[in-house]
């Protein structure tokens, strides 16, 4: 049962244009969402996050949108640069439950390979 899904395995975008990466989730207990960027044979690098109490968070060229009713989030990169080419993972967390047993347990999507062409 895949609770976090990235349905697009890959995305190709021209430099300077907008990249939109999508993520869907099924677990309504998730209350914190993160995007990570990963190069081959390296660890994921944190990009941006959003709490479930918000619907938008912006950091420079990166904006994450959250639609709780649709259980959908997206990452917008504007303008896209060739250095943005990497695998992008969406991740979700169940946050603070009574026992804290889900703390730090990120559930990752399958990843989307973004290629930005010069």
């Amino acid at each position: 049962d895949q609770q976090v899904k990235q349905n697009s395995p890959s995305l190709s975008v021209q430099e300077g244009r907008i990249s939109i990466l999508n993520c869907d989730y099924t677990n309504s207990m998730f209350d914190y969402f993160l995007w990570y960027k990963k190069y081959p044979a390296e660890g994921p690098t944190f990009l941006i996050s959003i709490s479930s109490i918000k619907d938008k968070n912006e950091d420079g060229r990166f904006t994450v949108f959250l639609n709780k009713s649709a259980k959908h989030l997206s990452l917008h990169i504007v303008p896209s640069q060739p250095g943005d080419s990497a695998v992008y993972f969406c991740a979700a967390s169940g946050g603070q439950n009574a026992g804290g047993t889900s703390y730090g347990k990120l559930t990752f999507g399958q990843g989307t390979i973004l290629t930005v062409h010069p």
Partner: protein
Amino acid sequence: DTEVTQTPKHLVMGMTNKKSLKCEQHMGHRAMYWYKQKAKKPPELMFVYSYEKLSINESVPSRFSPECPNSSLLNLHLHALQPEDSALYLCASSQRATGGDATNEKLFFGSGTQLSVL
């Protein structure tokens, strides 16, 4: 210092060998994690240590043995591994709080150890 350092970067071992993976962080984080990532798959949680105590074991086989000697160090001891255990092993850390700030769940990942079991 926002770095999580993992050694070695690459490891090749036979099925009868005993080896250890090491991880270190000096960000004052009190939660540390081991994730496993197979090629073209998302990272999967193995273990979580909180305040130097094991808090989550995701039903990992006993041939993987984690150890947290202090708040800055995390080890993963390997013994009698199988070829299917070959993967990228990622260490991560995060702040841990008992309050409601979900942003403390942001994980910082190391570059990983690429393990090959022959």
